[in-house]
């Protein structure tokens, strides 16, 4: 799998269930690619931050 495809799947995983085949291919790519693993962590962080933003929790109050 190429990084460009992996990055797309990482994003789509936030929006739809991946097929078993996609999951397996993505997982084996992430296991050997630091850049894509970091990309996934960044995407997961974005999701957390956006959820917080939409609950109004952007400051101590």
């Amino acid at each position: 799998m190429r990084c460009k495809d992996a990055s797309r799947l990482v994003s789509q995983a936030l929006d739809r269930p991946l097929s078993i085949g996609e999951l397996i291919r993505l997982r084996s790519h992430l296991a050997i690619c630091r850049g894509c693993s970091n990309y996934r962590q960044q995407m997961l962080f974005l999701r957390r931050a956006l959820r917080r933003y939409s609950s109004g929790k952007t400051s101590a109050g």
Partner: protein
Amino acid sequence: MILRNPTVRIVRLPAALMGPSAAGRMATRVRSRDGIVPHAGSDGTAEGGDGVQDWRSDSLYIAEIRRDMLRFAVLQLRDSQSAEDAVQEALLAAFDGADRFSGRSALKTWVFSILRNKIVDAIRQRTRTVNVSALGAEGDSLDESFEALFDDKAHWQHDTAPGQWARPDEALEQQQFWEVFDACLDHLPENTARVFMMREFLELDTDEVCRELGISAGNCHVILHRARNALRRCLDGGWFAGEGA
């Protein structure tokens, strides 16, 4: 609960609930606190169990929460009048059901969940919230910057491979981080941003987002990914690069 005729109730509410001009007209009434829930002397910051009983008569607190709500609603509706309407409806609904809450943090979360529903209602009532043809044009420039991250074998370029962000959870606790986050959201092209926010803020599922907009699922995924990548790059440069990542 949606109040069909909010004006009937408005006379009982603090001025902060209304827009600036209404706030002026209501000032005297609020100071006299006539007809408002008994006030237990909140200082506006109390987090304790008795803080909630007061919040409906705490005009400072309401002004603050209203400001945050309005910013959130304007970002998505891009129209101050419908944003004001959504915020006011959400606050009115919140006034009716607020007794269940024991702390202001939980209260704010709940008020925002009402607001999100009001925004979803507003979006659904619109015939067209997104200019689908403008989406394509916006996408071209976002796609260009995405493509530039990769070499001709579709692997990350040497200097564009995503790094490890330092202490991301600490960032979430910092006011300055949210200022950067706000600015980065504002930087997203308008139509792309609206699709993205329907998904991320209003938590509509992807099928519903596509259906509302009349675009294909594939196109929807492309738009969402574009937005995420743009936001990621903006935070990377605007925050994490300076954090010694």
